[in-house]
């Protein structure tokens, strides 16, 4: 599973924030799309999203239909072979995409929103609110993640909702810290001072004035969390803590592993969902990497020394 790198969101370390200005945003997006890594990441994610949205276009087999030959290897009828019960692995992979992606996206969105609320509120309000929110953040940061996830997932009823709940609980803390440090640097800015003078309430200031300036940071946060969540969700399901009657890549991995797929030679049953998870993680990671480069100009691919136009 991907381990989030401290400092990987250097996009948050100051370079990416500016007063609202369309030209900057346009320039940003242009730089983004010219980056090879961003393109690669985007392509991967778009392909996976397409598969999730239209599984029926890729395969005609019902993923749950246990009617084919048992544990057959890849063939023209069954591109990735069949499972121990006689289901088509390829259609299971295709149909499992949707739930997998849904879990990742929902958790990432919720976690990002949570971390934004907590981080920015802490930064903006300061004082006791800041100290207590930071304390809360630190506690969640320090408690070891996977053991907590295992304990929670074990005791709560197994299923997608539990998976989403426990992953949200453990994913927001990291970005909250980053967003808070970002918010701190904003506190003294002029446009905020003018909003305060106008008499706007803190909540309004946070939501309407601060957040829009941080969209690129939030996007970077979202991507960072997503990489994290892909790995953890797959890991939990692989351990058997998901609901194995719900079709996701993780539960597919679990079933393959539980039936000794690797050892009994039905290799693609186990490798294909693993590769799919890796691909999804890589897609988010590449985009994340690209965002970092844009945010921190020092990280951009080095041009030749003579070129002084690099900004």
């Amino acid at each position, binding site marked *: 599973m991907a381990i989030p790198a401290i400092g990987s969101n250097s996009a948050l370390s100051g370079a990416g924030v500016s007063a609202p200005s369309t030209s900057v945003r346009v320039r940003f997006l242009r730089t983004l799309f010219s980056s090879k890594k961003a393109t690669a990441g985007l392509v991967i994610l778009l392909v996976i999203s397409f598969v999730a949205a239209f599984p029926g276009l890729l395969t005609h087999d019902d993923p749950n239909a246990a009617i084919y030959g048992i544990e057959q290897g890849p063939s023209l009828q069954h591109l990735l072979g069949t499972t121990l019960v006689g289901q088509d692995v390829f259609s299971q992979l295709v149909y499992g995409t949707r739930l997998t992606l849904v879990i990742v996206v929902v958790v990432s969105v919720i976690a990002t929103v949570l971390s934004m609320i907590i981080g920015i509120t802490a930064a903006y309000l300061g004082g006791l609110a800041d100290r207590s929110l930071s304390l809360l953040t630190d506690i969640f940061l320090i408690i070891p993640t996977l053991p907590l996830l295992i304990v929670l997932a074990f005791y709560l009823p*197994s299923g997608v909702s539990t998976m989403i709940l426990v992953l949200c609980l453990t994913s927001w803390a990291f970005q909250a810290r980053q967003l808070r440090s970002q918010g701190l640097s904003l506190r003294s800015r002029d446009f905020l001072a003018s909003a305060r003078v106008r008499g706007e309430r803190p909540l309004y200031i946070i939501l309407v004035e601060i957040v829009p300036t941080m969209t690129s940071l939030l996007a970077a946060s979202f991507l960072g969390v997503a990489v994290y969540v892909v790995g953890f969700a797959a890991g939990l399901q692989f351990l058997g803590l998901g609901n194995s009657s719900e079709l996701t890549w993780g539960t597919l991995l679990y079933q393959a592993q539980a039936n000794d797929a690797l050892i009994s030679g039905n290799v693609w049953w186990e490798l294909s969902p693993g590769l799919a998870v890796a691909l999804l993680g890589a897609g988010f990671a590449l985009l994340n990497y690209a965002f970092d480069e844009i945010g921190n100009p020092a990280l951009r691919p080095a041009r030749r020394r003579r070129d002084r136009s690099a900004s």
Partner: protein
Amino acid sequence: MRKPTWGRAPTHLAAALPRSHRKLVTLLAGTATLLAAACGGTTSAGSSTASSSSVGGKLVIDSYMGTTWPCTFNPFNPALNFLTVGFTYETLEYINDLKASSSGSSLAQPWLATGSAWSNNYETLTFTIRSGVKWNDGQPFSAADVAYTFNAMTTSAALDLNALWKADGGPLTAVTAQGSNQVAFTFDTPAQTYFYYVADQIPIVPEHIWSTLDQTKLASYTDSHPIGTGPYKVGSCTQANVKYVPNTDYWQSTPGHPVPRIAEVDYPSFLGNDQANLYLTEGQAQWGAQPVPNIKTAYLNKGPDRYMWFPPVLNVGIFPNLDNPLLSNVAVRQAISLALDRSNVATRGESGYEPAASQTGIITPTYQSWYDKSIDNTAYDPTKAEQVLEAAGFTKGSDGIYQNAQGQQLSFTLQTVSGFGDWDASLVVITQELKAVGIQITVEDENSGPYTTNLESGNFQLAYAGSGGPYTAGGPTPYYELRGDLYSSNIGGTNYSHYNSPSTDALFNAYAATTNVSQQKQIIDQIEQVMVSDYPFIPVTQGVDWYTYDASHIGGWPTASDPYAQPAIYAPLEDAGVILDHLYPTN
């Protein structure tokens, strides 16, 4: 570690020894002992080989239990006592569940007790204790040890794993040693069905060791160097392996005919299921307890002398919650039973390792003599299933699911326990087959804690379960399993369906009140009738004992044609000891 991926359901089947056979058994046992003594070998009924007397060879057991060994051998620790019961500790008598009912009665073989007798209208049971038996530390074994073992359960109630004593809900009120070689058990009601538990399920421990411990904490005694009467002693133990060595003082040994004959037994701990399978297929273990995937190609064909035998022992199937208004309609349950192609489920879901079950609830061939084929209406008939539903007033909705006049759909959740890959696989097939007749199932995986709680409290609509639990014990006749499933006082326990029928209860009571085998058979027949007409639960496959053996260097194994003992090495059964007594090194 992965939990065992199959629904293991080992059972030990209990025998209620019919009174008419009691004296016969004692006579036979006595004769057998005489004959055995005369022939110079003390092997029990079943295959015996003791023509040669060499001791040698090494036996490696292959059973994935998901834990490393903590090297504690307390025979009353239900998490680990499969390591010692049979090996080191023994029981009063031996009852072979697999053969118990083949002649319509059970034959209890004398073991630490040479015989027993009921008196006082089945309220007093007296055992005669074998003489000349020694504990493996050299001390003599006597009736006092037997009395001590049972009485220890009154000070340490956690020892009473079969709930025998009155204080734990059973009928036992007193156990006293009488004279030097008799022990009398006193019950407060006729307790013939408890003979099995008392005689075959309780390992006897030495008073001279255990009485020195804290009597209220006996269940937590570590017992790292178990002193028992059994054929083996624990030679050494590490996290990864227990090595057993023969008990040279074993009571079955006679000069020139040592028992046991395998010089070393290893019981390794496997951390992964695939590890255990690999060890077996590579030939490093001989006694396997693994349902190896693709067993023919992966295991059997890879060696010259390898065999498999999975004797069926327990029903696994769908338990409907009879308090659910839709499921309380017998037509719905009948439709479910008719919609299932049980052999397809068995082939796909259980890889063909578990045979299809019968709606009569009788496990065959184990209980063949109790099985009434004429009333067995188990059939795969999806057309008839739909007819039954329509005759009961259900109509098919536009989505293909049947619904009743109020619009309630035949759409149910089905709970199963997570970690059982074969049950999950079976349920995929079952879901498919039920969908084809317009009944919709949504499978829910639960962890074993919530699963068990829901099963017992009736907090489910449908559940996939083994009778009594995923790995539980059954009985030597169908009475034990079926009573667990259907008797009303088991509601809140093993009667998951919450089936409550006074007439069925009366049948079970009648069985317990008689020792006449033909009467018992008639009663069981009537219970089968209840099963096929009332569908209180729907057996789908028959849970089996997992057993493979490699006979290239070791002989004397139990087989399908010679089922002299139950081969489930992962259950704490005396059967393990019986098998160990029979094995011998070849070439």
